[in-house]
C-alpha cells in the first residue's frame, strides 16, 4: 500500500459511522421521550452543545483560541429576536438561517483581524470584538432594548404547522433537529480534505504552508463557518426562550463555553455535546449545594482540569468504558480521544 492510499484509507475509516455514534444519537432522541418534564433544561443543553461545537470547529480543529465567541452567539440571538419582533420573517426556520447568516457575515469580516498575529493578539481581538458589540448593543438601546433586552417576542409556528408550546416540547425537537443537521454537516466538513488540512495548520502552520495549503484562506473559511454555527445557536436561544438580553455577549458566556469544550475534549465533534451535558449537570449540582457561589466550584473544576492535564483526565474517564468495550468488541473498537493539545 502506498503512503497516499494508506492515508486515504485511514481518513476514510475515521470518517465512517461507528455503532457508538448511532447509539449516541438514538439515546439523545430517546431522552426526548423519556423525560417529558425536563424539556427546558434539555433544550438548554442542546443549544449549548451546538454553541460548543462551533467553538470546537475553530479551537479543536484549527487551533484558534477565542475569548469572544459570544459575539456571534449574541448577533444571532438579536437577529432572530428582531426578525420575529418586527415580523420581518415570521417563519422560524427561515429566520434561523438568516440570523446565522448575519453572524456569518460578522465572522467573515472579523476573521481578517483574527488571522493576523499570534495567540495573544487573537485572544485580545476576539475579546475586544465581543465587548465592542456589547457596548454597541447597550448604546443603541432603541433597537436592542438596552439592559431590558428584547421583550414581547412571539414565535410563529415552525413551517406554519407546529406551534411552540409552553412545555418546550416543540422547542426541544426543533433544537434537536437543527443540532443534528448541523452536526452532520460539521462531521462531513471535518472529515473532508478541507478538515484534514485544518488539522495540518493547527499542528504546524509553517509546514502546512510549505506543502501548499493556503493557510489564511482556510482559517478564514472555518472561522466564518464557526460564526454561522454560533449565530444559529444564538438564534435558537432567542426562539426557544423568547428573550434576548445584553448578557448574550457577556464574557462569562465565552469563558463558560471554553470550560464546556474542555470538559468534553477538543478536536472531536462529540466533545461539545458531552461537555454540554456534563457542564449543565455540574452547574445544577453546584447550584443546589451553594446557590450563590457555584462559580467557585466551576473555577475549581477548571483549575483541576488544567493541573491534572486534559489528556490524562480523558484517559482516566475513558478507562472503564474502554475496559468494557474491549471485552465485548475486541481491541479495535476502543474509544480514544484524538490528540487535543490546542
Amino acid at each position: 500500500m502506498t503512503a497516499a492510499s494508506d492515508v486515504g484509507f485511514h481518513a476514510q475509516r475515521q470518517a465512517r459511522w461507528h455503532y457508538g455514534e448511532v447509539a449516541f444519537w438514538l439515546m439523545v432522541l430517546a431522552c426526548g421521550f423519556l423525560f417529558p418534564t425536563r424539556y427546558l433544561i434539555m433544550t438548554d443543553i442542546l443549544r449549548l452543545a451546538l454553541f460548543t461545537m462551533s467553538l470546537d470547529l475553530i479551537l479543536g480543529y484549527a487551533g484558534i483560541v477565542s475569548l469572544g465567541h459570544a459575539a456571534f452567539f449574541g448577533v444571532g440571538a438579536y437577529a432572530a429576536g428582531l426578525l420575529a419582533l418586527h415580523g420581518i420573517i415570521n417563519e422560524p426556520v427561515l429566520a434561523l438561517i438568516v440570523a446565522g447568516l448575519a453572524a456569518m457575515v460578522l465572522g467573515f469580516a472579523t476573521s481578517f483581524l483574527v488571522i493576523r498575529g499570534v495567540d495573544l493578539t487573537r485572544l485580545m481581538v476576539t475579546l475586544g470584538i465581543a465587548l465592542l458589540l456589547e457596548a454597541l448593543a447597550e448604546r443603541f438601546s432603541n433597537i436592542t432594548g438596552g439592559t431590558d433586552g428584547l421583550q414581547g417576542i412571539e414565535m410563529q409556528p415552525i413551517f406554519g404547522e407546529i406551534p411552540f408550546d409552553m412545555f418546550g416540547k416543540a422547542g426541544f425537537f426543533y433544537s434537536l433537529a437543527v443540532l443534528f443537521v448541523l452536526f452532520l454537516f460539521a462531521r462531513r466538513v471535518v472529515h473532508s480534505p478541507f478538515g484534514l488540512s485544518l488539522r495540518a495548520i493547527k499542528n504546524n502552520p509553517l509546514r502546512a504552508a510549505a506543502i501548499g495549503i493556503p493557510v489564511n484562506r482556510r482559517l478564514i473559511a472555518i472561522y466564518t463557518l464557526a460564526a454561522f454555527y454560533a449565530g444559529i445557536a444564538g438564534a435558537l436561544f432567542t426562539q426557544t426562550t423568547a428573550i434576548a438580553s445584553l448578557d448574550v455577549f457577556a464574557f462569562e458566556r465565552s469563558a463558560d463555553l471554553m470550560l464546556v469544550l474542555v470538559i468534553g475534549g477538543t478536536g472531536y465533534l462529540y466533545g461539545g455535546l458531552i461537555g454540554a451535558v456534563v457542564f449543565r449537570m455540574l452547574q445544577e449540582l453546584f447550584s443546589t449545594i451553594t446557590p450563590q457561589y457555584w462559580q467557585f466550584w466551576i473555577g475549581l473544576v477548571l483549575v483541576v482540569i488544567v493541573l491534572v492535564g486534559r489528556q490524562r483526565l480523558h484517559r482516566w474517564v475513558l478507562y472503564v468504558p474502554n475496559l468494557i468495550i474491549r471485552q465485548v468488541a475486541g481491541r479495535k473498537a476502543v474509544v480514544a480521544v484524538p490528540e487535543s493539545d490546542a
Partner: protein
Amino acid sequence: MTAILTNLFDGVAYGMLLFVLACGLAVTLGLMNFVNLAHGAFAMAGGYVCMVLVNRMGWPFFAALPLAFVSSAAIGIALERTLYRHLYTRSHLDQVLFTIGLTFMSVAAVDYIQGSSRVFINLPAALQGQFDVFGVGIGRYRLMIIVICGLLTIGLQMVLAKTRFGSRLRAAVDDPRAASGLGINVPQVFAFTFAFGCGLAGLGGALSAEILGLDPYFPLKFMIYFLIVVTVGGSSSITGPFLASLLLGIGDVAGKYYVPKMGPFVIYTMMIVILIWRPNGLFGRTAAR
C-alpha cells in the same frame, strides 16, 4: 479650559493607577509570555486587605498600604511556587483556562467572605476634598495617587536599568537559556518578579478602591483594561505600558466626560485598531518574539 485641565488631571491619575495595577502583568504576560487573566484577583486581594485593616481594625491608611502590597505579594509567591510554575511551558489555552478558573474562584470566595456589595475605605481627612490651583480643581486623593505612582514608576525604572537584579531580569527575559548558562537562577528571578508584580497590583487595588470601585467582580471588570495596557504598550520596556496606561486613562476619562453615550466603545475600537496595526503593541519591539 479649566474643565479640560481638571479632566486631564483626573485622566493622568487614573492612568497612573492603571499602570501600577497592570505593570506586574506586563512582566508576566509580556516578558514571561504567560497569559495571566487572574491578575486582577491579586489587586482585589490587596484592596480588601487594606479595607479590613483600615475599617475594621482602625489602622491608619498609610500604614495599611504597605501591608496590602505585602499580602498580595505573599499570595502571589505562594501561588507561583505551587501552581503557576507548572504552567509556564503549557499552551496558551491551558494558561487561559487555568487563570479564568482562578478568577472565578477569587470572585466567589470574596463574595462569600465579604459580601457582594461595593466597599469603601475610610480615608483620612487630609486626603478628602480638593483645592484650586489657578482655577483648576485638584483632588487631594488623586494628587496623592500621582505622587505615589510617579515615584514608583521612577523607582521601577531605576531598578530595571541600574541594579544587578534589573540586569538579571532583562537577561532572563531576553534569553532564559543563555541566562541560566551564565549562572542566573532564572526561576528564582521570575518568581521574585511575579511576586513583586502581584504586590504592586495589591497596592494598586488598595489605592483604586476610591476611584475604580472595589467589589468582588473587580477582577472580571478590569481584566480587559489590564490586558489593553500590556498589549498596547508592548513589553520591551517599562515606558511602553506606562505611556499606554496614561493614554488609556486620559482617553477613558475624556470619553466618559465628553461622549458619555459611547461608553467604552472608543477604547475597545482603539485597542482593536492598534492591535491590527501593530500586533506587538505601540511601543513593542518590531521583531516578533
